[in-house]
């Protein structure tokens, strides 16, 4: 049995600044023994003071590192409702309660050479951590890391300098054509997919539902394995409430629903029934 006391951490905010409209980067001091995490894992975060929002909110770990002997975690997030709006009001020295790291992260297979990351908007959050991991923990073993990054508009394509250092190449797109390819990032991936070595490449994607669904289609069409990070509303984050269901593919399995927080949030696209929700 794990040491219970360690499973719920207090994070102390170092900074929580707006990068561009409604998008924030939170940098937190976490306990030194905050358990090592795998990219793609997430945390349930809650304001320590007050009772609002009532439930914790799930966020991917955007980065986790040591600095001046302290363990620091970064969360990249967007205001998308009441909970995130309240979290965005936190300032330096405010405290948050953190459950995590939680769930199943990305599984970077041994021996594969090409890592293809595909981020849609905030989907960059866990993929940045994955890129860091590939470079820092798996250096040498892996081949090139290519990042496809699509967003609404040019100023949504942020952190490019940090990303440039982590990845072999960046392929950018915007919905409004203000930077890079004019159109969905999945177009770029589909266009290049033929050139990926089927047995030597893995796709890792995160973004809005429509985009990861499209990635599932591309993965199937080109027979390239693809891992996606999936989102569903969560109450507990630890597998108890069954709130975060996603429908499993395949008819013969008795388990029709999988828990995003426990079996996921990272799934192989083939594990999921992509008609599980409307949009």
């Amino acid at each position: 049995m794990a040491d219970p006391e360690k499973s719920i951490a207090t994070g102390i905010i170092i900074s929580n600044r707006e990068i561009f409209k409604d998008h924030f980067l939170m940098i937190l001091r976490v306990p030194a023994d905050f358990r090592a995490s795998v990219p793609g894992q997430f945390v349930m975060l809650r304001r320590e003071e007050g009772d609002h929002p009532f439930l914790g909110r799930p966020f991917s770990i955007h980065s986790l590192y040591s600095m001046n002997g302290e363990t620091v975690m970064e969360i990249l997030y967007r205001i998308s409702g009441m909970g995130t709006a309240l979290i965005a009001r936190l300032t330096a020295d405010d405290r948050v309660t953190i459950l995590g790291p939680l769930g199943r992260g990305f599984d970077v297979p041994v021996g594969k050479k090409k890592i293809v990351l595909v981020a849609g908007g905030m989907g960059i959050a866990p993929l940045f951590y994955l890129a860091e991991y590939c470079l820092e923990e798996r250096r040498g073993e892996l081949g090139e890391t290519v990042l496809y990054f699509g967003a609404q508009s040019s100023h949504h394509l942020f952190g490019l300098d940090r990303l440039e250092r982590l990845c072999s190449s960046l392929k950018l797109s915007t919905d409004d054509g203000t930077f890079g390819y004019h159109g969905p990032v999945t177009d770029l991936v589909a266009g290049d997919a033929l050139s990926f070595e089927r047995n030597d490449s893995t796709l890792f994607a995160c973004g809005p539902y429509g985009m990861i669904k499209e990635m599932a289609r591309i993965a199937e069409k080109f027979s390239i394995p693809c891992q996606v990070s999936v989102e569903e509303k969560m109450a507990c984050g630890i597998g108890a409430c069954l709130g975060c269901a996603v429908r499993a593919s395949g008819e013969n399995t008795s388990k029709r629903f999988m828990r995003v927080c426990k079996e996921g949030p990272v799934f192989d696209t083939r594990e999921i029934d992509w008609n599980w929700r409307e949009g």
Partner: protein
Amino acid sequence: MKDNNSRRLAVDIGGLVLKNPVMTASGTFGYGEEYAAYIDLSVLGAIVVKGLSITPREGNPPSRIMETASGMLNAVGLENVGVRAFIDEKLPFLREVDVPVIANILGDTVEEYCEVAHILSEAEGIHALEVNISCPNVAQGGIDFGVNPELAFKVTEGVKNATDLPVIVKLTPNVTDITEIAKSVEDAGADAISLINTLTGLSIDIEKRIPHLKNITGGLSGPAIKPVALRMVWEVVRAVSVPVIGVGGIMKAGDALEFLVAGARAVQVGTANFVNPRSTVEIIKGIAAYMERKGIDDIKDLIGTLKT
């Protein structure tokens, strides 16, 4: 039995002795194992597991949950692994923990309830059954067992005949007169009554003009419903003589104490587990600290002491 603070916290629920009155509420604590990393399960009064049906159920499609003011709506539906998979895959873990296990059961017909009850009674390591009667009776056109005194009577009677385990019947609050249902299940032989299950609610996404939950309505739980739960417990305590277990919006020791003072013999902690996985442990400690401070040696001297 005395706890660390040498206060007597043990209570008796229809023959089942709990080391303290704090259990988990069904559907909010998985099958126990999900919380093992956060708390020492053996300190709990009892673990009530997610509702079990005769065959596995897949539950409702997402979205299944939505936060509301001081609460949440859920329409998980009755997703569960089924009673046999529970016994094979989940129960072995729980058997290793020194804690009473209460199985919450459900069905579409009286026969299904009885069958689940029977199967669980044969299994080793189940200490009591909790009958969730807020399920729709398919034979009666989907009307909830829990809103009709006769149906509530029948399912209770059936389960009592199918098992030797103590039978707790869990009531739904979506009724005009909770005491009528309570008396009916007491007459049918219930050993204890737990309440409340969730209140039915709705929440709408005004941007898309669709319900937040795919199932349209869901069950409201959390602190928002505590005053309703407490009122109903207080009503039922005075209407029946079997022990009553209070459930609904208990987040802190103070909340649990309100239920105990109102007359509940024990309490269940539900949604609080989501917000803080250590809630149950903190509540148990808080109750002991309160008794210490108030000089109450035995929890029996606290239960039902509301002055009105």
